[in-house]
């Protein structure tokens, strides 16, 4: 069941000529749930854009062993123009791909899918609202619905927990854990505390990438919010402290 769907090999990428990420290796399996952690400006969003094909590698190789998987994307909310005149319904429909891409009206099956999606997300009542009138949590739900409506195999979420309360966050995490049975998930966050219990593994991104094949991070690391983490205590062995994966002191 579990097979690689995306492989990054020795990637270096960035904007213009300035590299933001270097020597990045990562394999995403079809049932992965990877928490992507790191400080502001560490390159988390850049890594997501690389996987999405929005950025090209300067060097290294991105490959998809069984073709590019259908991908759902929830961008960081700061990338969304909330004052743009678009309704929740239109926003969510923009995630529909396959049929009838040209004509202004949705086909019957597309409309059914839209209504099912809005219903599942609890957005039916808000369908005709412009996105500018949504709360932070409602907007995140709408953006998540847009990412999910096309039934992706890979779901990329860039900080879906910004501007949302704890209750919504718990709802969201329950939803994600259910979704993880059908798709691989990459969840970007800099809130280590709340995501570690739900993800399966962790990738630490700060100019480069350190993969941590479990979700057990020590108290120590939780405090040392800044990635690269200096010490990682592997779960089952108390007090055993591993030296961080020999990255440059920077």
């Amino acid at each position: 069941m579990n097979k690689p769907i995306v492989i990054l090999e020795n990637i270096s990428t960035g904007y213009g000529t300035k590299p933001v990420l270097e020597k990045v290796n990562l394999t995403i399996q079809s049932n992965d749930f990877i928490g992507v952690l790191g400080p502001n400006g560490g390159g988390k969003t850049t890594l997501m854009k690389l996987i999405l094909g929005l950025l090209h590698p300067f060097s290294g190789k991105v490959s998809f062993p069984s073709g590019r998987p259908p991908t759902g994307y929830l961008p960081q909310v700061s990338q969304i123009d909330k004052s743009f005149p678009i309704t929740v319904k239109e926003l969510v429909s923009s995630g529909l791909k396959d049929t009838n891409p040209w004509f202004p009206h949705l086909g019957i099956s597309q409309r059914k899918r839209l209504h099912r999606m809005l219903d599942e997300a609890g957005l039916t009542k808000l369908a005709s609202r412009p996105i500018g009138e949504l709360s932070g949590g409602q907007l995140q739900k709408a953006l998540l619905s847009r990412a999910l409506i096309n039934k992706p195999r890979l779901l990329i979420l860039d900080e879906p927990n910004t501007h949302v309360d704890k209750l919504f966050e718990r709802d969201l995490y329950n939803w994600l854990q259910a979704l993880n049975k059908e798709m691989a998930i990459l969840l970007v966050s800099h809130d280590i505390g709340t995501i570690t219990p739900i993800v399966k593994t962790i990738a630490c991104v700060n100019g480069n990438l350190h993969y941590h094949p479990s979700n057990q991070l020590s108290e120590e690391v939780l405090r040392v919010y800044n990635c690269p983490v200096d010490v990682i205590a592997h779960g089952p062995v108390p007090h055993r402290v591993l030296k961080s994966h020999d990255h440059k002191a920077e």
Partner: protein
Amino acid sequence: MSDLLSVFEYQFFRNAVVAAILISIYAAMVGTYIVSRKIVFIGGGITHASFGGIGIAYYFGANPFAGAAIFAILTALGIEWIAQKGKVREDSAIAILWSLGMAMGIIFVFMTPGYTPNLMSFLFGSILSVGTTDLYVLAGFGLLVGIIYAIFFRPILYTAFDPEFAQVMGVRVAIFRYMMSVLMAMAIVISIRSIGIILVLSIFTIPQITAMLFTRNFARIIPLAALWGITGSVTGLILSYLLDIPSGASIIFFLTMQLLIIKLIFVIKQKIAAGRN
């Protein structure tokens, strides 16, 4: 009142009204894109750069309209190219093209020996002198924009709102952005004849801003903007005749008044609603 109706007996006035209606319709479509994406400044760059083309055309005795069109389209494509490549700051590039176009226009008009016919009408517009051919051009262009919006409404909207997401979904974002740039440039140049370089951008923005007081749904802004464009510009035209003032300025003045009055009504209604609670 009879005065009011008697103006419609004149062919030139009927032509002007039809022109105002046609312009309002395509400006509603193109302008909603401009206002939603907040790229009014790009429109300004295109408009003013086109003056360079007008100047050069005068100098070489060519059709000023063609000169304006070439300059406008090249400027629009250039700005979009810079935006996509991101090597230079977009606003700096716009400012440079804006002033370069104006400077070239002024230099070439100055160097052109003798009389430069219709120069004033390019700066201030002359909607009262549009002929039947002009009306066909306006109608033809309106139809073209309408067809493009009907077929490509979704990719246009999605590309305008969130180009990266659209690209992930497989929309050919770059192509649509270039297409919309060309459409914007053409819409502006075709309207310059009637409204003039100095005021043309208002017809692409004021009715849209008025419409956005009523709805925040892209698809609904378009017909509403067309409606407010038509009421404002036709009223402006009639007033320009009655008061004997320049028609382009009168249209824009009235469009703005209309916006302010509607805004005021909204504010008063809100105050009353707040007072009830």
